[in-house]
């Protein structure tokens, strides 16, 4: 029976996933028992991690509220594009965005130049506020999507009724929107809090020092500065406890995940108030667009001249990055497909487990396993592929598993009747029906992997830089123009890969 084979494959895939997750965790546990106790600096890292994540979540959601509200009740040309672009930061390489933010908010950035002319400033981007700023840049759009989903879930009839009763905006807000927000906002806060706990590249570039070190960054420092593996293991354990708890909270609270299709669907709204509120909505949307677009544009501007004299090694790094991205995409799709084939809730639950382990925790664990056997830097790229695959899995499985289940429930009976099993079923039923979802997932996994600057910094490389790593080195050497140019290429490749895969999935004969 096809289903029995599917269940077998799903269990195998889940088993592989569990091994990839728990082998490093076990290595960490064993190593953490080595007698290192958390020092005050480690607890300070925990406090800073919690503080920056909480602030990032609060500010992201607070800023997203007026934006989502304006998007929900206004109709304007470009609205669809605006909403589509709120999905873009998800696949934007972190280091590219951070560099763009430095170009705007940094000491020599546009903002400080303007402030200096007014006799103010300079604002400093490094430290807590820089970390929060970057996290808000990435997560405010996500919060906007989640809130917009909530707004659009309010039945149009209720707004019609409110209009019929001639309720003033304040009453509409209290009666219709507040109850929705009470449901959606905790989920958005929890999700962003969890994401920011595990973020590494932002803290690596904008944080640091005794007062702005996250646990994830402290793990990296334990490796690179002290090579204290016992401390790294203890920190990894602390980080796992934090992230796992936050991930569980996010899953419990989050109803809307911001991935929902149909966000562009316009709903007739009768309450959209005129007058100054209309102007305020326009202003909010323009500010949000400027906040999200300015760093990217400024990076593009500063990077364009650099394209003429790209640093040595860029094409090798680009090739490495593309290969890693393609391998991650292929592996993610295979694993997700295998796990989705079980049509089982348990197996799909297993697919969410990577959310509990941050990239550097996984990296630490695998380093501990490999180090006695082989120089970890030799295996840096396979490790990068493995960790990137694990990180992309929860998102991709959430898209693929329902699509798989739908294909089986819609057409499984016919396939059974025709005796389609195994590869024949895959070829004639599963792959064609899942093609759009697979294309999207492959694009997502490729782009996420392309832009990842995490585990690679732990393992170091023996001559095979990835693009983000090359860019990071150039930034560290204050070669801003060259770094921007690499950033441009990195961004183009990330979006390009995503676009190609997504496009391929949506081909007309799908």
């Amino acid at each position, binding site marked *: 029976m096809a289903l029995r084979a599917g269940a077998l494959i799903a269990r195998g895939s889940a088993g592989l996933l569990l091994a990839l997750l728990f082998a490093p965790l076990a290595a960490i546990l064993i190593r953490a028992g080595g007698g290192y106790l958390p020092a005050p600096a480690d607890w300070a890292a925990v406090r800073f991690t919690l503080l920056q994540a909480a602030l990032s979540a609060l500010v992201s959601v607070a800023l997203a509220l007026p934006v989502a509200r304006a998007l929900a009740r206004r109709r304007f040309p470009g609205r669809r594009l605006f909403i589509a672009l709120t999905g873009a930061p998800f696949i934007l390489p972190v280091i590219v965005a951070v560099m763009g933010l430095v170009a705007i908010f940094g000491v020599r950035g546009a903002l400080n130049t303007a402030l200096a002319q007014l006799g103010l400033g300079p604002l400093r981007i490094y430290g807590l506020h820089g970390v929060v700023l970057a996290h808000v840049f990435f997560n405010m759009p996500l919060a906007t999507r989640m809130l917009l989903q909530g707004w659009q879930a309010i039945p149009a009839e209720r707004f019609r009724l409110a209009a019929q009763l001639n309720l003033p905006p304040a009453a509409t807000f209290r009666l219709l929107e507040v109850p929705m927000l009470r449901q959606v906002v905790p989920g958005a806060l929890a999700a962003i809090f969890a994401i920011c706990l595990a973020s590494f590249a932002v803290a690596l570039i904008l944080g640091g020092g005794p007062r702005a070190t996250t646990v994830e960054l402290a793990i990296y420092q334990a490796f690179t500065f002290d090579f204290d593996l016992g401390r790294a293991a203890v920190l990894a354990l602390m980080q796992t406890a934090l992230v796992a708890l936050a991930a569980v909270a996010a899953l419990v609270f989050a109803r809307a995940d911001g991935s929902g299709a149909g966000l562009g669907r316009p709903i007739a709204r009768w309450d959209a108030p005129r007058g100054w509120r209309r102007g305020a909505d326009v202003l909010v949307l323009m500010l949000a667009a400027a906040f999200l677009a300015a760093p990217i544009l400024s990076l593009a501007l500063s990077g364009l001249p650099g394209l003429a004299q790209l640093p040595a090694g860029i094409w090798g790094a680009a090739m490495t990055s593309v290969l890693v991205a393609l391998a991650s995409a292929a592996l993610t799709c295979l694993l997700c497909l295998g796990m989705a084939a079980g049509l089982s809730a348990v197996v799909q639950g297993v697919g969410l487990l990577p959310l509990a382990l941050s990239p550097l925790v996984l990296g630490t664990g695998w380093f501990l396993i490999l180090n006695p056997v082989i120089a970890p830097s030799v295996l840096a790229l396979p490790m990068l592929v493995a960790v990137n695959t694990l990180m992309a899995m929860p998102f991709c499985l959430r898209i693929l598993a329902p699509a798989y289940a739908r294909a089986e429930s819609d057409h499984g009976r016919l396939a*059974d009747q025709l005796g389609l099993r195994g590869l024949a079923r895959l070829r*004639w*039923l599963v792959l064609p029906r899942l093609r759009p979802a697979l294309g999207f997932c492959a694009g997502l996994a490729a782009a996420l992997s392309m832009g990842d600057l995490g585990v690679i910094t732990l393992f170091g490389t023996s001559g095979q830089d990835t693009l983000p790593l090359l860019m990071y080195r150039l930034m560290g050497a204050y070669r801003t123009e060259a770094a921007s140019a690499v950033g441009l290429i990195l961004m183009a490749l990330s979006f390009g890969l995503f676009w190609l895969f997504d496009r391929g999935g949506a081909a007309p004969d799908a």
Partner: protein
Amino acid sequence: MLDLRSLDIRQGSFRLRADFRVAPGAKVAVLGPSGAGKSTLLSVIAGFFPAQGGSVLWQGQPLEGLAPGRRPVAMLFQDGNLFPHLDIARNVALGLTPARRLTPAQRDRVAQALARVGLAGFGPRRPAELSGGQQSRAALARILVQERPLLLLDEPFAALGPALRAEMLDLVAALVEETGATLLMVSHAPEDARRIAGEIVLVEGGTAHPPAPARALLDNPPEALRRYLGD
């Protein structure tokens, strides 16, 4: 010969019993009120749903444990009889083989089947480009190449208008006439049964009654059938 031996079908509190034989080449309408278990009976024969007790035998061999695709059965459902993502020719060809490349003989077979149901030249089209009647014809073309000795129809033409439905039933009658297949056809409409069926299995009150000659039954309905027909 199809032999339902002391079949006992249960689904929650629902229960249906069947104990009868269907002669080879017979055309049987399965009639009864909705919810009586007509579709469930066909599902059990096709292997989609296990019976609690009893046995389904074909030519004396029990079918239990055989996957739907391994049974001597071709079945059309109420909907979803074609894969929407594959063209008509491929949909028909899947009745022959799941292989990617067809032999010239197989390609001829597909073309012949399409021509037989009046869809010559429709092979490269997608199901969505066809009308409802044409989609039914395409599904019948696949049934034709499947060459299974037992054909089960679970109201595949229910969504068609009366004239088109009659046309499809005539086509089905002609096809089973040519292939000698045994036909079991779920229906709500006694006129369908009158049109092509030689016999009627009445499903009612938890029992699927043995087949009885259609004309005689409809002309002089027993109490149970009269309740269903409502006159």
